């Protein structure tokens, strides 16, 4: 596991094939990884939680959770791990790669699904394939948690309204006895299809050495 220090070039090439990052990007990320882990092979929750910039993020727990969620590793595994190596770290990061000009329509579609799945997994904490009302509420609550004027009820009301919306969009003709159990992935896709996730959910991974640019160090 993790980025082997001894033969990085070869190792990186594998990773690049797997994740789609360029070698430069992988190098940068691996530097950052070591920064975060304190030169360990693996990274733990504590490592991530200690990032000062994250402290103000209302969904910090979700974000950190996503890194330790096995579902985000492009494998069929389920559950969460305590520590992740560099490869897993990259795998999670790879969800945030931007599409390129060369990306075909099918690839874009796949990318979109993948990104949506990542989001979905962040919401679906118990991994039962649906986002239940309780889960949705929790998310909204956390989203609003940084503004002091908001009570729990507000968040709940908004989550309820959102849930209603999902139900009414996806199952417009529910029988009187039907109960909308939660947002399935298909429904999730449906409600977010207007957001163009494939182009929006990305960050810029630097191709150049972050240390030279003086950015990388300042965070930690």
């Amino acid at each position, binding site marked *: 596991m993790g980025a082997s220090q001894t033969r990085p070039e070869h190792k990186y090439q594998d990773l690049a094939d797997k994740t789609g990052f360029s070698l430069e990007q992988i190098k940068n990320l691996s530097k950052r990884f070591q920064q975060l882990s304190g030169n360990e092979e693996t990274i733990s929750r504590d490592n991530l939680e200690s990032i000062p910039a*994250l402290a103000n993020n209302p969904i910090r727990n979700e974000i950190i959770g996503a890194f330790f969620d096995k579902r985000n590793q492009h494998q069929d595994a389920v559950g969460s791990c305590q520590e992740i190596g560099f490869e897993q770290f990259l795998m999670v990061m790879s969800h945030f790669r931007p599409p390129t000009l060369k990306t075909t329509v099918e690839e874009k579609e796949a990318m979109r699904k993948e990104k949506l799945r990542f989001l979905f997994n962040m919401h679906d904490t118990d991994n039962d394939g649906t986002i*239940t009302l309780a889960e949705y509420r929790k998310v*909204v609550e956390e989203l609003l948690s940084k503004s002091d004027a*908001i009570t729990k*009820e507000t968040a709940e009301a*908004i989550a309820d309204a959102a849930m209603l919306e999902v139900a009414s969009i996806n199952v417009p003709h529910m029988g*009187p006895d039907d109960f909308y159990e939660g947002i399935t992935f298909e429904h999730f896709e449906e409600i977010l299809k207007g*957001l163009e996730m494939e182009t929006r959910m990305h*960050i810029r991974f630097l191709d150049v050495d972050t240390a030279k640019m003086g950015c*990388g160090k300042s965070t930690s």
Partner: protein
Amino acid sequence: MPSRTGSHTPPGIGKSLPERGLLLLVVLVLLPLGAASSPNTNQPGNVDNHNVAVQSYNYTKKAFPVLSLDYHHVSTPFEISLWVLLASLMKLGFHLIPRLSGIVPESCLLIVVGLLVGGLIKLAGEEVPPVLDSNSFFLCLLPPIILDAGYFLPIRPFMENLGTILMFAVVGTLWNAFFVGGVLYAVCQIQPGSPSVLNSIELLPCLLFGSIISAVDPVAVLAVFEEIHINELLHILVFGESLLNDAVTVVLYHLFEEYTGAGTVTLLDCFLGVVSFLVVSLGGVLVGAIYGFLTAFTSRFTSHTRVIEPLFVFVYSYMAYLSAEMFHLSGIMALISCGAVMRPYVEANISHKSHTTIKYFLKMWSSVSETLIFIFLGVATVDGPHSWNWTFVTVTIILCLVSRVIGVVGLTYVINKFRIVKLTTKDQFIVAYGGLRGAIAFSLGFLLEKELFPMREMFLTAIITEIFFTVFVQGMTIKPLVELLAVKKKQEAKRTINEEIHTQFLDHLLTGIEDICGHYGHHHWKDKLNRFNKKYVKKCLIAGERSREPQLIAFYHKMEMKQAIELVESGGGVKLPASIPSTVSMQNIQPKKPPPAKPAERALSQLPKGREEEIRKILRSNLQRTRQRLRSYNRHTLVADPYEDGFGEFVIKTQKMIELEKKIKDMNNYLTVPAAPPDSPTMCRARLASGRGTDFKPAQQQKGNKSSPDPQAYSMKPESGGLPTIQVDLASPQSPDSVSLMDEFKAASKQQQKKKQQEEEDQGLMMKPSGANKPGEEDGGRDQPRRTRCLSDPGPSADEEEDEPFLP
């Protein structure tokens, strides 16, 4: 005839003015809406005759003039009004002709109208008024359009694409100016054969011409792009470019104008030009931002004088524009930044009505200005002394096209290296093809001085031709081309709350990931800015509780409001029985979800008894809210007279109620609520009534009540207290769309009130208006839910009365 001569006696200008006015009126009549305008025609005619008569009196004996005409006195405003009237009637006319607007863009039609009017004036032997002179254009016609654009600028896409826009606006415009100017100069020199006028043109005038002609015009772009409904990205690219290139144009224009006088350009001048560009653009933005913050700050204190609230927005913006122009800074950029900066804060401060006013005034002013500009363009074309030179004009048009295409393709090549969402070939084509020129170019050309530029007429002709070419040829073909190329169109779908939640979620997520990656990207800085805004700026600029309202909540308020309006609209407009099962709208669908009584175990475990309590709570707060909202809205406009409706409807009402009763029996089966408590149908219905929107939190509301800074929401007029009034408190500023519904809303709610009252009387419920309405919002007492429920839901409201006791 003495009368004839009499009318001609007044001195020169005075003579021509009345006739010009008359002529305009004649034109008005000739054009489609003869009927509408005919009353106007008679009037001046009569006055004119009177005038003649009175004047002859004056000559003979000095009787007291019973009626006298002094057209000169009012001529300017009179003519202005005539023009505005003409413009508005034209606009009206186009939309009455059904298929026309689908084929030809409005701007083209308006230019044609202008040509016709100009032609008629000319035919009548009058001199065409210099309608489109630069002063009136830059000081009166342009600002409303730009302010409208700036105020309603979609900030998010604009900022996301700022780099690209700036690239096009600055580098692209520079390139266009120099390419067109340079090549044009070359062509003029090369020209073979006998010496022609063109050979005498120098380089600087050519460059000046290039800089005038190269700027994409926001007015023309807006006029065309609004009609083709192109996707947001392309729209903001072309439109943003047209706005931001103003600074470049201003600087280039002044630069070249200056140097044409001086004759030579040194390197230092070039350097100063660059500095000047920075000063002009950044200075414009700064001036705008300062005024924007001033507006926001002022609007913080307007809560007691709502009437003049909208005025601040207009006046401050105009001041920003004028201040910027005063220093030759970019007025357009000042307006844009002023509008964009003030909007979020102003909207949080002002009342809903003021917001509607602002919206409508801006739209009205901008559309009238736009119409006038195009008409004037047509008139000016007829008017101007033209000097048509085939070579010059043809070369200009071709060069403009070529340089635009090269510029866009070249720049996109560079930009695409940095962009995440690449611009495809189609996009590039539309961006290039959408580069319309317009009245700004004409006005700038008009400003040229004849002494310095002997070629002024030729320039003007070429500019007009180029404008006509872009507006007519490109403007008319761009729509079919967009369809042919299957360029993505704008999605009309309104934003859902889920999308809003996830947009925010995504923002935080991406910020978080960036932080983990350890580099500061866009999201990081955006997040910082937001935090700063929330922490300090909002506190200063926004009054009361709203400053702490997060975006999601604000959005939620808006949606809620929209829904409430829709609801009342659908509920109040349609007769009661139809409203329950058949309407397609949200309200009917949604309630099916909250009672998730399905025997499934999941459901039970997930929705415990607490759920019911919760519904109750939500409901109560909703009702309370609804009531407040309903009430404040109607404070001025609508105080229903309980007896105004007589007994006529009473019979109908009773019938309806019987029907309703049946309906509600059905509903009991229909909405399966766990354990079917006696009051559950009510709650479901009420919930249905209030729609998902109203599932709202009491927390904020109550807080708001205590501090109660917003008189809109909380001030109760004693006299209105006696009557059940409906008011809508805009918890937060409306999204523009919803406002348009207000009228229906009003109507609907009025109806409901009547119904309501009658139902009450009918049932003998003690609904003493005075008692019920007096209590402040704090007493979320039983009266309130009852009343509001009824008010908000005309449908089942009759029955809800019965359930009332169950609602604590």
